[in-house]
């Protein structure tokens, strides 16, 4: 290992991004297989054994296709939106502790950093919707913003519950506290568990996944903000969506399920297992539930989740005061 801190940071960043993008490629395969089974079909089977090489075939195909920019689109912003989306989605990885020693940067505001980046995600998607100069794209972008800034509030509030319980904003610190005092999903009875559910739900909404995918509701808006996108740019959006789901699962595992903490197996394996289990849960939800209507989405957020998370925060504070 080299001693130059800049080179080291660069290498670590490259390693994390490569690992993530590889994982993203094959979770698309996994999702298609699960979706197939849920809908009584087989999913991809043709390319490689069990269709395992399908992601590679898809990548090659999307790179070969022509990238079309609509004549009246805002070309610069149209080009800028997909890579920006992916960059923001991947940026969260910097603060996720995969094992006690493997953490790109243990800044003391790790949780806030992850939440801030997650909240930014609706930004490039709105840009895509506006730059496309298409009414469906713009409507989708508008819905994304409305949903994004509404659900950010219960998301931040529910993520503050483990912060209050652990007494630190650092991701590594939250995990270390759980390794000593038990996972938050069970250790603070009720409060931790409900906060975990709310966080998972709001992470789905920020990531534009069913049941919260009204921005790209295909029955009304063709494909929402991504309607005009083709080829590799569309693939970047898809990759960003999967990367966000995966990283949101990782953050939920870190904040509530004890991160890398676990018996017998090495820490990194536990982290991967927990993240994978949460991702499977999200996928299962996606193919089982219906899309919420716009007004139902807003009522759920403002009338249920926001008051609930405020109460949870109060409960967490009370719990900490009583415990010490």
């Amino acid at each position: 290992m080299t001693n130059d801190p800049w080179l080291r940071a660069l290498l670590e960043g490259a390693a994390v991004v490569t690992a993530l993008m590889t994982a993203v490629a094959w979770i698309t395969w996994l999702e298609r297989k699960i979706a197939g089974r849920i809908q009584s079909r087989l999913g991809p089977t043709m390319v490689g054994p069990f269709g395992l090489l399908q992601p590679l075939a898809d990548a090659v195909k999307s790179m070969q296709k022509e990238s079309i920019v609509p004549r009246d689109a805002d070309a610069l912003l149209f080009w800028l939106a997909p890579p920006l989306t992916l960059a923001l989605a991947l940026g969260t990885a910097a603060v996720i502790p995969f094992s006690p020693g493997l953490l790109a940067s243990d800044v003391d505001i790790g949780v806030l950093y992850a939440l801030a980046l997650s909240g930014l995600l609706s930004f490039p998607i709105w840009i895509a919707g506006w730059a496309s100069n298409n009414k469906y794209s713009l409507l989708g972008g508008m819905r994304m913003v409305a949903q994004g800034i509404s659900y950010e509030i219960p998301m931040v509030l529910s993520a503050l519950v483990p912060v209050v319980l652990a007494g630190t904003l650092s991701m590594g610190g939250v995990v270390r506290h759980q390794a000593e005092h038990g996972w938050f999903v069970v250790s603070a009875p009720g409060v931790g568990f409900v906060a975990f559910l709310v966080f998972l739900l709001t992470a789905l909404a920020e990531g534009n996944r069913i049941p919260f995918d009204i921005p790209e509701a295909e029955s009304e808006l063709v494909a929402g903000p991504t309607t005009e996108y083709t080829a590799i740019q569309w693939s970047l959006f898809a990759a960003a969506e999967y990367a966000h789901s995966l990283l949101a699962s990782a953050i939920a595992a870190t904040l509530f399920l004890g991160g890398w903490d676990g018996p017998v197996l090495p820490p990194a394996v536990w982290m991967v297992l927990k993240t994978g289990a949460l991702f499977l849960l999200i996928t299962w939800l996606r193919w089982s539930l219906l899309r919420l209507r716009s007004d139902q989405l807003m009522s759920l957020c403002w009338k249920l989740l926001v008051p609930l998370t405020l109460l949870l925060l109060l409960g967490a504070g009370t719990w900490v005061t009583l415990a010490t």
Partner: protein
Amino acid sequence: MSGEQVGFWVVALAILGAGRQVVTSRNLVHTVLWLAVTLANTAVAFVMLEATFLAAVQVLLYTGGVLTLMLFGVMLTTRDTGFVDVRSPLHRGFAGGVLAAAVMALVSASILRTPLPEARVTAPTTEALGASFLTEHVLAFEALSLLLLSAVIGAVVIARRRDAGDPREERGPAIRPRAPRAAGGAVRLGAPEAE
């Protein structure tokens, strides 16, 4: 020049350049996006001063602010041009210049009068910040919360204000059930419902 100084000048120029674009851009959406670039670079400046908490909060809060501004911008202007021509006559430009100079003088005077420490100070940790909010600055903190609370209540009141006597409004925001289908599948619009 040290690496840190180079970094400072890069960020400072980025802030100023993006700020100039905010004012001169002819397209409303571009203006708002340049504003986002300005604010993001301010967050970078905070990081360079080791005030990471401030940087994260800057990103977290201004995202929502800028996005809302963008929505208003798009919804309240025409799509064709995306901007309203507000070029003003010369005397107004002169007044603007005087005003800008006055603000500049005020800000620089207050910066110059503030005794800045010579030595390098480390930014307070998040913990220290939180503690000072609830001890030394608790009055200002509570006053701010009260202000925000009144703003929230005001927003709810304005959003809920309705014309009295409009029966549609009293049913609330829920989507009304579809008119029942008559025999043969035709929809009876406006027909009184048989109880």
